[in-house]
């Protein structure tokens, strides 16, 4: 298979199929799911059978239907958080690179301090103070994670602002807004697209972990992380209930990661970008 004259590697195709299936599943959840997500259709932790293909959950709801609906919450909240992460991180990163040394130094030192701590620990601190709700979670993750995007966006913009055409725009008397939106942004799109994918993976896993810890998305909204949390006890009785939502999280992350790997291999990323384990 080729896109724009380039051969797409097999792994990226797999990633694409996974992402496509996920999107279809999320958009058409009410038509695909065999049951209502809140309807009790069997006993507690029924094993997979002809009526409930993946068995039932801790209060007898159909696991498959919950999975299909839960994907809506998990994926959409991660997407929203990633969007804000990118807006804040890229905006401040470009600002630091396009204005003067003072702004750059202030922003960079603040980011240094925030980077000195794992996101999870800061996040737990915020939740202890403000309590857990979806808006607070999205805001906390966006702000904390944007520090990681800031580094990349600043590095990318730094390499662009030294170009002749940016100098010309400056001499023409264009403002910072013009420089950022019309000169830097169009030339920084490819690495930022890959970064968006990476950030999505990280945010998605992070929100799942928070929900798993009982601190993320609260009921009644079904989401994959809290489904693992709710069904964790089944493991002690020899059931597999928490494995299904956990596997769903893993599969979506792998799909996005495969596409990101491909994007990264097309556009050589500048230093500072990494697909590695993030703290």
């Amino acid at each position: 298979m080729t896109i724009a004259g380039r051969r797409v590697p097999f792994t990226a195709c797999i990633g694409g199929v996974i992402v496509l299936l996920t999107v279809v599943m999320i958009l058409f959840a009410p038509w695909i799911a065999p049951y209502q997500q809140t309807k009790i259709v069997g006993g507690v932790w029924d094993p997979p059978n002809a009526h409930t293909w993946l068995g039932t959950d801790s209060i007898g709801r159909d696991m498959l239907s919950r999975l299909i609906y839960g994907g809506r919450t998990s994926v959409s909240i991660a997407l929203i958080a990633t969007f804000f992460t990118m807006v804040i991180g890229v905006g401040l990163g470009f600002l630091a690179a396009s204005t003067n040394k003072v702004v750059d130094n202030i922003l960079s030192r603040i980011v240094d301090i925030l980077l000195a701590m794992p996101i999870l620990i800061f996040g737990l601190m915020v939740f202890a103070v403000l309590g857990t709700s979806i808006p607070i979670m999205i805001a906390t993750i966006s702000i904390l994670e944007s520090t990681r995007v800031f580094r990349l966006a600043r590095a990318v913009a730094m390499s662009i602002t030294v170009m002749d055409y940016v100098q010309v725009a400056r001499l023409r008397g264009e403002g910072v807004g013009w420089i950022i939106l019309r000169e830097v942004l169009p030339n920084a799109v490819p690495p930022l697209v890959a970064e968006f994918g990476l950030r999505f993976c990280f945010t998605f896993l992070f929100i799942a972990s928070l929900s798993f810890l009982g601190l993320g998305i609260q009921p009644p909204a079904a989401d994959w992380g809290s489904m693992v949390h709710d069904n964790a006890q089944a493991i002690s009785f020899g059931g597999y209930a928490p494995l299904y939502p956990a596997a769903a999280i893993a599969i979506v992350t792998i799909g996005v990661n495969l596409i990101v790997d491909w994007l990264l291999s097309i556009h050589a990323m500048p230093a500072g970008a990494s697909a590695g384990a993030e703290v």
Partner: protein
Amino acid sequence: MAILRFIVFRAALGVLTLFAVSLLLFLGTQLLPGDVASALLGQSATPEALAVLRAKLGLNDPAYLRYLHWLFGVLHGNLGTSLTTGTPIASVLLPRLANTLFLAGYAAIIAVPLAVGLGILSAIREGGILDRTASILSLATISFPEFFVSYILIVIFASGFGWLPSLATVYDGMGFWSRLDATTLPAITLTLVVVAHMLRMTRTSTLAVMSSPYIETAFLKGMSRTRVVLGHALPNALGPIINVVAINLAYLVVGVVVVEVVFVYPGVGQFMVDAVSKRDLPTVQACGLIFATVFIGLNTLADILAALANPRLRSGLRQ
């Protein structure tokens, strides 16, 4: 002496960062609408009761005084008093810290030699079976949430074969070997979580050195690939490898949070999550500070060790 100056500078920077983070942790609690006293007593509290509690907790002092007071206490081993139990936090936290360090240490002892060894092996046989397997596995471990890895291991080794316990129950006075047995599954989980990243970085650092001219010379002298990698490339790749190992150890101490909850292991992570759901602020603050200290400490150590492994820095920064 340049190296000594670097170490002192880097250590000072670490301490400074820790201060900044402690300030942030303290300021975080000031975001609370109302204050700790009203959070503690709830909405039905009488103004008199609030006033008494405020005086008792020292909440009438200005914020900077309270910060200094807290910091002074911490430096003397007094981490404050828990809001929910009313007991000193330090007495509960320290045994749990020992448990967490035991688990992280156990995982590190398995993970570090495994990752560095396999990383060097896959650099020696670049593109070989081991190399390709490692790259697929690293994708999997980056994408799998920690609890997924944990549950797979529990289903296989605890429910399936029944070799290991599915809950990491430890208690005071437990023998070393039974403690080791109880913590094996969580330790393997943590190992799997960090090993791939360490392996990839070891491989990349070794291969990065492999493209330098002196490596080519060594090859042209007719040396075997194994000898070139072990004798010429590895000593120069050591700095980055030490760095990545230390960073991953720092990650271990944090990654431990989810794993501790899965296996109901009495460590700092589980303690902190518990305190967050009860909104016990002083406890969360203390746990956060402990994590920050370990994390920043290991990161500082990483930079210092990497500098020590670099001959150019060791012999006095000629460049």
